[in-house]
């Protein structure tokens, strides 16, 4: 076993270039003859374009061409990759999403025209000279108002703002209602899962290029999944066959989901580059990111929990309004349904569950997956309502959870998914120890002596990630498979290049993936390198999201490496004049079992490429294998989180004193990377709980449209975390036994923070049962002073 194989906390090799300014991001790409596009965007949320006059703007210095909706009248719209079927068996309403507006604008930020010029400043100057008259229409912002009769329609042609009314499991509805009717106790909670702006550090960028001599298109873009962009844009928008379209995503500076989706700007630069026979570049301004990157969350939910007198969970019923925004972003319909409804069982044995979700169009930025995507929304409402139930029943919230834990696996939930493995009591035990739950009262007294209200919030989470079994998601409406791929290319001298369909946007693939290959073969990880992010030289892959890279991409990597080992053993058997079955591979050396005969890895690789002494009659030369892996189930990371807060009763300000996270991620390849992923997720979850919130006014203007009003968590907003992943129940169905870890922190932490604040207020004598996120000082103060 090499010292830098599976389980080693090796430092991230990609950080050498990231930390020294040598990363190569999309905005670092500048092509010869490149022109720049500036998009003219709607400043009103809803309106008819009554006049669009480009004549003066077209005469401005440097202007090459101005594109409007008319140029895209014959071009496909941006497609949606997931079709949800509603309660009544009807497919969701799916409006067209044109590249440039076709006579109507539907949110502040909707692209009306695109000015291409020699420089970005010239394009921007000309954009300001464009004459656009818009007859403003009433905007639809509030979801519940949007589905009432007589509401203005975001899309007249589909006849309704209700995208779908989804019931899950619809067949269980009557039984769930009956269980509620005779329940000993019902706890009800209405809450908002606040809308978030993704805020990747690197704004989106797209550069389109076209080679007329070969009719080849290239798109450089900030993407988590270049193959998906190639498929969607090539097949559905521009009609470019895949062999004529290359999509490159170089280093990507964060995405959190927002760079999964196919955006109109990508289609535009690819289209315009051919029209103009010049490369065309777009770089988002930060203020543009706020109104064009797909937002996250934005659910309004009523959850009810039915319990018996002794606290046994009997049934769960929810009704959620989920904001889609003005158009369906790539995976938007799947988030409040299959990524949310299927998680409503949480870590608990609740026999009956019914989830109703109404997806609604509004005149706001499209909403789609954001770190956790549906699972944070499920976890938040469930873990909040359990805390409320414990208070109502005067039970200890941890004991109530333990009482209802799933303890036997595999466990078939009433919401379709099957948990393969887990040990929720173990993570709770670990948490109790890490967070010193027993010592809370002492700390509370110390806080009280300072005039502060201290509270403790504990919750569990489970998530389904490692997305996803293709056959299953196909039945659920996915218009894509969700396998992953890897090509392992062994060079003649034994070092290895791995081409993977996964693509890092910060996760450390270049470090963790080589650890896996090196471990299997028994060579140093430094002899293995990763190539990713370019459709021209990697096998078809579905990219990085849903905590899937190691669980799915890593499994493909194991499969391909095992194929390599299998072939290498044949070569070794030939060289050692032994039977293939007798060959053992250990620490980079092939030996014949029971003898001292051996040949090293390098010699076998050399023989494969210099096949002088080689079984050519039965074996091809070379050593390169590709594998695709399609998981048979999701992976189910789970854990228990504890947060302690102090509330300043004079101001309502919440300070997080401590945060502990006990996670079960199954086997761990690189503990340092896992810890970093958890830290990042916790930071985002705490951000959602205390700080972040995208707020629209009634006219559809984004009030929190810059960092002056949208609060991102800073280092001093978060504590030094205690994280642990020693409770390990390895995934039973992938070869590494790993579960995803990228989203866990963001999924599990918001309820811990909110539970802690409510606990602090309750202990301080304030009868506050809920405050909607973000728990800003003013909201906490208002709640304290109304109750």
């Amino acid at each position: 076993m090499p010292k830098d194989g599976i389980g080693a906390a090796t430092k991230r090799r990609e950080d050498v270039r990231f930390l020294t300014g040598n990363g190569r991001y999309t905005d670092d790409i500048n092509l010869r003859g490149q022109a720049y596009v500036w998009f003219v965007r709607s400043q009103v949320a809803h309106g008819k374009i009554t006049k669009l006059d480009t004549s003066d703007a077209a005469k401005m210095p440097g202007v090459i061409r101005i594109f409007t909706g008319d140029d895209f009248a014959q071009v496909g719209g941006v497609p949606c990759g997931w079709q949800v079927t509603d309660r009544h068996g009807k497919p969701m309403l799916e409006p067209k999403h044109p590249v440039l507006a076709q006579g109507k604008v539907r949110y502040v930020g909707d692209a009306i025209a695109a000015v291409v010029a020699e420089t970005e400043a010239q394009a921007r100057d000309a954009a300001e000279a464009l004459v656009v008259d818009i007859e403003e229409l009433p905007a639809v912002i509030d979801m519940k108002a949007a589905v009432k009769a007589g509401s203005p329609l975001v899309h007249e042609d589909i006849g309704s703002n209700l995208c779908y009314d989804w019931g899950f499991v619809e067949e269980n509805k009557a039984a769930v209602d009956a269980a509620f009717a005779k329940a000993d106790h019902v706890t009800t909670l209405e809450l908002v899962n606040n809308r978030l702006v993704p805020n990747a550090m690197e704004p989106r960028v797209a550069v389109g290029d076209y080679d007329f001599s070969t009719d080849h298109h290239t798109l450089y873009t900030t993407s988590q999944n270049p193959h998906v962009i190639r498929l969607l844009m090539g097949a559905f928008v521009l009609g470019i066959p895949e062999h004529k379209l290359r999509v490159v995503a170089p280093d990507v500076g964060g995405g959190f989901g927002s760079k999964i989706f196919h955006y109109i700007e990508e289609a535009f630069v690819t289209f315009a580059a051919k029209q103009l026979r010049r490369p065309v570049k777009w770089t988002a301004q930060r203020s543009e990111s706020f109104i064009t990157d797909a937002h996250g969350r934005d659910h309004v939910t009523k959850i009810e929990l039915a319990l018996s007198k002794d606290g046994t969970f009997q049934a769960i019923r929810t009704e959620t309004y989920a904001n889609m925004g003005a158009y369906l972003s790539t995976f938007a319909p799947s988030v409040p349904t299959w990524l949310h409804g299927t998680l409503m069982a949480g870590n608990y044995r609740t026999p009956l569950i019914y989830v109703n979700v109404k997806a609604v169009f509004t005149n706001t930025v499209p909403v789609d997956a954001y770190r956790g995507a549906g699972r944070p929304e499920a976890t938040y409402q469930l873990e909040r309502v359990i805390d409320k139930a414990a208070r109502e029943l005067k039970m200890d919230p941890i004991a109530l959870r333990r009482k209802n834990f799933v303890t036997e696996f595999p466990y078939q939930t009433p919401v379709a998914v099957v948990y393969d493995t887990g040990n929720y009591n173990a993570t709770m035990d670990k948490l109790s120890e890490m967070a010193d739950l027993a010592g809370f009262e002492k700390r509370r007294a110390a806080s009280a002596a300072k005039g502060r209200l201290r509270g403790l919030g504990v919750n569990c989470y489970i998530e389904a990630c490692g997305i996803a079994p293709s056959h299953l998601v196909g039945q659920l409406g996915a218009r894509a498979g969700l396998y992953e791929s890897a090509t392992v290319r062994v060079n003649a001298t034994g070092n290895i290049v791995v081409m993977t369909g996964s693509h890092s946007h910060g996760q450390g693939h270049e470090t963790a993936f080589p650890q896996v290959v090196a471990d299997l073969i028994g060579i140093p990880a430094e002899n293995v390198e990763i190539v990713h992010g370019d459709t021209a030289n990697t096998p078809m892959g579905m990219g990085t999201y849903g905590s899937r890279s190691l669980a799915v991409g890593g499994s493909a990597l194991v499969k391909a490496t095992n194929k390599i080992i299998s072939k290498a053993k044949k070569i070794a058997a030939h060289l050692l004049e032994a039977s293939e079955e007798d060959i053992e591979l250990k620490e980079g050396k092939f030996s014949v079992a029971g003898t001292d005969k051996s040949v090293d890895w390098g010699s076998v690789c050399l023989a494969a490429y210099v096949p002088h002494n080689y079984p050519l009659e039965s074996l091809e030369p070379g050593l390169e294998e590709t594998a695709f892996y399609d998981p048979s189930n999701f992976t189910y990371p789970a854990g228990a989180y504890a947060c302690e807060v102090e509330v300043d009763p004079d101001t309502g300000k919440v300070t997080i004193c401590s945060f502990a996270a006990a996670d079960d991620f199954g086997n761990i390849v690189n503990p340092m990377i896992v810890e970093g992923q958890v830290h990042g997720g916790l930071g985002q979850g705490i951000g959602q709980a205390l700080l972040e919130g995208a707020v629209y006014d009634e006219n559809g203007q984004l009030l929190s449209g810059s960092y002056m009003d949208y609060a991102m968590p800073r280092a001093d907003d978060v504590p030094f975390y205690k994280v642990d992943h020693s409770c390990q129940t390895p995934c039973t169905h992938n070869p590494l036994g790993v579960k995803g870890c990228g989203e866990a922190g963001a999924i599990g932490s918001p309820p811990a923070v909110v539970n802690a604040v409510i606990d602090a207020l309750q202990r301080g004598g304030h009868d506050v049962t809920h405050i909607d996120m973000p728990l800003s000082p003013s909201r906490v103060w208002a709640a304290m002073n109304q109750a």
Partner: protein
Amino acid sequence: MYAFEFKRPKTLSEAVAALGGEDAQALGGGQTLIPTLKQRLAAPATLVSLNGIDEIKGICTDDQGRLCIGGGTTHAAVAKGAGAYPALAALAANIGDPAVRSRGTIGGSVANNDPSACYPSAVLASGATVVTNTRQIAADDFFQGMFTTALEPGEIITEVRFPIPQKANYQKFVQPASRFALVGVFVAKYADGVRVAVTGASSNGVFRWTEAEKALSANFSAKALDGLKASADGLISDIHGSAEYRAHLIKVMTGRAVTAAG
């Protein structure tokens, strides 16, 4: 950003001349102006940087014992060099972040009179004198509402003169996103009375809370505020807090400032 001419004069008189040109705009540390220009919300023909003028930089004490801070002095320099007025130095040390403090100037902040900026509260609470290239303006006359001051076009703040109080303290409750003051209160106790200036709260910009001044002048203790209530009339109400919340915070921060002042 739109194109503009850029001038960096070395003397005050050159700067005054440059600002006499059409659509000329003075540039201090640029911590407000540069973002405004980048968003194309302003389009000056000429930008006149005051950063090269040594005669408006630095800190000294005048013969009346006042701390005199050149208009071109950065927040970082004040944080380091205003030891004679510790509450003022502490205020400067907590403006924005290190980058802002290294570029932003007291003259720029005071001239801009952002309703959420820290410095105007110190200037007003100290009864400071704003000195320009043409005159001296008392703090009470200088601030005239949100982003509005007594400055004439082309007038440059050369110095701000602070009488040093017996006791003083500034308490800032930050707006979570911008970390500007949601409410900031500067309390300064002089031999002839206490002055309390509030920033962040009012849509009219910095103002004095006279009821609190009266109470604290009689008894400089947080207890003296019992029974007082800042009015919510005219206070800002936005996604970060209601007018009532801001009014409440004015009292809380005033009390904390008094206690911290000792």
